[in-house]
């Protein structure tokens, strides 16, 4: 039941005609931070809290669980763990609640061709329902996918996220006009970009200012609350 519900949630999040990529746009080497991003934002009566990962509530919760299970404190980090910790240090956690479901998303920014881009991936989802058996899913077993948006700081109190128009990309791929690695299912009209991070970055560098890649319907303007 949990699995079915999780699948439905992911589809609901991803089906907003945003592009979904198997690979992230930002890596631990290219990830950047900007203090203007942190804070509480509001859009369409939904509050969004953006926190640096190591300052986030999610990290505190995860750390508490990790400390409980921790046995060996002298263990040195592997190369992968070091790279991940650098990436986390440069990542944000976005929390928001919609229809009594709490969403926690990882967001990592990268600067390409003078513009900020951010890739989001689901970090944690849980319900606030008290009368049902509460469930909490850490999403560690699933294959992570990323949605990509351009970040524009309009001013100190306004932030705009322009999500890449997945339907435009899908149309171009179907018409044989776009050369990007992908997996698509024409029967269910689903489409996933499988290009490498490097290729994604090159695409964004080249077409990051092309208006066709961004649709107004996929743009979200956030107003700072605090």
């Amino acid at each position, binding site marked *: 039941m949990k699995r079915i519900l999780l699948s439905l949630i992911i589809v609901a999040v991803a089906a907003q005609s945003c592009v979904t990529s198997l690979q992230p746009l930002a890596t631990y080497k290219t990830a950047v931070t900007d203090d203007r991003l942190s804070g509480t934002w509001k859009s369409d009566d939904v509050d969004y809290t953006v926190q640096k990962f190591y300052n986030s509530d999610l990290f505190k919760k995860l750390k508490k669980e990790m400390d409980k299970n921790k046995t060996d404190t002298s263990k040195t980090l592997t190369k992968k763990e070091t790279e991940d910790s650098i990436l986390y240090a440069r990542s944000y956690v976005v929390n928001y609640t919609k229809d009594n479901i709490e969403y926690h998303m990882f967001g990592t920014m990268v600067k390409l061709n003078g513009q900020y881009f951010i890739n989001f991936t689901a970090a944690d989802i849980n319900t606030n329902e008290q009368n049902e058996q509460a469930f909490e899913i850490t999403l560690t077993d699933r294959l992570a996918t990323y949605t990509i948006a351009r970040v524009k700081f309009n001013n100190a109190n306004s932030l705009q996220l322009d999500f890449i128009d997945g339907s435009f990309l899908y149309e171009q791929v179907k018409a*044989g*006009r*776009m*050369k*990007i690695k*992908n997996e698509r299912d024409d029967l269910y009209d689903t489409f996933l970009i499988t290009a490498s991070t490097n*290729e994604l970055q090159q695409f964004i560098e*080249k*077409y990051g200012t*092309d208006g066709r890649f961004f649709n107004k319907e996929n743009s979200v303007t956030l107003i700072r609350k605090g």
Partner: protein
Amino acid sequence: MRKYWEINHPLLRILQHLAFWVLSFILFLQLFKTGSQAEKVDYVYTGLFQLSLIPAVYINLELLLPKFGKRNRILVYLLLLFAAIVLFSWINYNFFAAWSAKIFPDYFFISYFTFKEIMAFFFTYIVITTLLKLSKSWFWVSELEKELLEKEKQKTEVELKALKAQINPHFFFNTLNSIYSMALDKDERLPTTILQLSDLMRYFLYESKDNFIPLKKELDVVDNYIALQRLRSGHQLTIETERSGPVNGQRIAPLLLVTFLENAFKHGAKGNSTDPYIKLTIAVEKNTLLFSVLNSKGIIDEINTTDHGGLGLENIKRQLELLYPDKHSLRVKNMKDSFAVELQLEL
């Protein structure tokens, strides 16, 4: 020249180049396609990628290689080639990474290769096409060499025929002069002389047409010729012959030895030399023939330095150059009282 013309016909050249690029396009398309089947954008991308290779390849083949691809300019060639590779790789990289968005706004692609990888593509293509060009040139040179050798052979045969045609009348002219003298003197040996001349004529006319004949036959003719001359010159002329070594299957150019001998008799037996002589030595050692003839010189020889005697010797030198290149040594010693010829031949 037919084959050279065939290979270099402009239409054939264009077809060869077209075939190469079409094959290259097909290979690239298989390498570059995104999915299992090539899409429209794959064709466009492959075509454009190949288009950037073409000028680099032809600048190398048509300009750099012919102009600088020589041993003494190889460093300049390599430097210019490297510069061309860097330049066209840079154009390729930037075209796909940036410029194509303006030129082909409805097709979306990037440079899927790093600058170094693109340079490797260019380098590989330039090496392949250079090797193809060199192998083709080598094939032409080889064909031309063959044709040249054939022409040289034909020329040599024509020249040899001409030389033989010069030698025979020369010989017969001298012998007939001798026979004429014998007839005037009513010499009783005349019939035998005519018979021996007849044998020699048979040899000259029918058996000396080949470039090489058995050595034994040539030595028989030498004997016959000496006998003929001995009859003519009588006891005044001392003739010494010495022969050694086995003769079995070696071959020699016909009339070679006879011509030297003829010269010796002509000069040694003539004039008012008090004690004319001819010393002939023939030694055969495996495939080496040592031939030497020494003759006394008459006073006539001192006077007639431009007589026909020189023609035979010059002819024989030319024959030796044509038939025994680097396989003979000829020493001619023109001394005060004698004339010597020493010939060494690799048979």
